[in-house]
């Protein structure tokens, strides 16, 4: 099993989620994070003084899938989250040794 972590722009979440469901993903976990990358932050103004905000709001998607699905998921995400501009995000893939479904105590692929 593999874990796919994708950092995407927040407004892409709905679309990405819909696409993932279409290709058969049954579960995912979403976290609001702040990202620092090549995309430059913005300035905020308070009473005439500028502050530089270099962390930008991003969404982290975590999806655990069986090996066979990895490529499909990567394509789905990178297809939809793509706008061609910096800040589009990153996808990281790593290995998961074991998965347990709490409700049934099933383990392994069946539990994903």
């Amino acid at each position, binding site marked *: 099993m593999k874990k796919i972590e994708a950092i995407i722009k927040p407004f892409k979440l709905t679309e990405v989620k819909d696409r993932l469901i279409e290709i058969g993903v049954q579960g995912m976990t979403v976290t609001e994070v702040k990202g620092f990358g090549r995309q430059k932050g913005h300035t905020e*103004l308070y*009473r005439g003084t500028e502050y530089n905000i270099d962390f930008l709001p991003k969404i982290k998607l975590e999806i655990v899938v069986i090996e066979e699905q990895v490529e499909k998921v990567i394509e789905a995400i990178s297809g939809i989250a793509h706008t061609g501009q910096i800040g589009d995000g990153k996808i990281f893939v790593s290995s998961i040794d074991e998965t347990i479904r709490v409700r049934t105590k099933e383990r392994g692929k069946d539990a994903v």
Partner: protein
Amino acid sequence: MRCNSAKVMAVGTLFLLGATPAFAETAVSRVDTGDTAWVLLSAALVMLMTPGLAIFYGGMVRRKNILGTMLQSFIALGVVSIQWALIGYSLSFGPDLHGIIGDLSWAGLRGVGLEPNADYAPTIPHQAFMAFQMMFAVITPAVISGAFAERFKFGAYLLFVIFWTTLVYDPLCHWVWAKGGWLHGMGVLDFAGGIVVEINSGMSALAAAWFIGSRRGYPHEPMLPHNLPLTLLGGGLLWFGWFGFNAGSAVASGGLATAAFVATHLATAAAVMGWLLVEWKHRGKPTLLGAVSGAVAGLVAITPACGFVGPVAAITIGLVAGAVCYGAVVAKFRMGYDDTLDAFGVHGIGGMIGMVGTGLFAAVAINAAGADGFFNGGAALLGKQVLGIAVGAAWAFGGTYVILKVLDKAVGIRVTREEETQGLDLAQHGENAYTM
């Protein structure tokens, strides 16, 4: 000008019919229901300004300090109100000693009853006047707390408020507003607290910000307002309550209250636009915090002037206040003191603008009890106003400095480094504002 006229007539009639003058005199000082309703409701409005200030300030600090900041405002309602009933009112408005201070004959509100006091407000119960003035004494130290927000020890703050109110506020209030006060006697005009509340709190704020030093990390670390909708709400409540503050200072309903009401609103509206447009020009974007800050600057500036100037002068004062206070706030960073919430930049500077504005635009045609300002041929008034600014500013700055110095030696005024990092809410109060 007030309903009194009707009564005077009625009494006059009685007089013609042979009533004794003594009776007629009593009648003249009878309580008027409209005036009393007006002043009591104005007092309620001014009371609301202190929670309003807590909310206005609370939204601007960092999340970890909101409760500590709000409590520094809110607690003034507790401690100053009691001080006022026990000694403050007597020191401020009690029988005059050499133009300097009131004596203690009204301590504990002895003799401050439900009959009018002709010196201050002949048509409302004396206690109504006392209550109205109480709310002013409450909010003034709360304004100062904006300067040293996010780093002042709560216990030391309580002591500061007690000493400051007694030693700084009460005397200055006496000088400017009490029968026999020396600045009052010289003809300095301050309708609703340009010296007593605004310059007083603003200059005290400057002394305090400078004495206590900057917050850790200031100015290189960003310290952003954590909840601006709260600040807008607080600003809205302040604007609302300020009608009581300013128009209520006529201490009677009628024409003068109306004039003060209109001047207050128009100056504030103009200051909103003044701040917003200058900021827009300067920084490229108009901000909500700018609009709300402008409103407060306008309210401050029109405070001394509102019962003496007409609508067009009010708009002028507001525009100038919005623009200049914006500049003052921006300049802060170059001055090297950390006035957290710009109590000096808004209240100190705004109060001075208003005092000068009064000296320029006051008109006897608006208020016969006032004087003509520079543009109405009364250059003398301008000088008096500047004197008033100078006296108020020096008194507030010096008094605050001495009190803080003594308190710092005695109990220490600043939280520890760890407490400051953790935030006042947890460190000083063991509370967390939001549990989402």
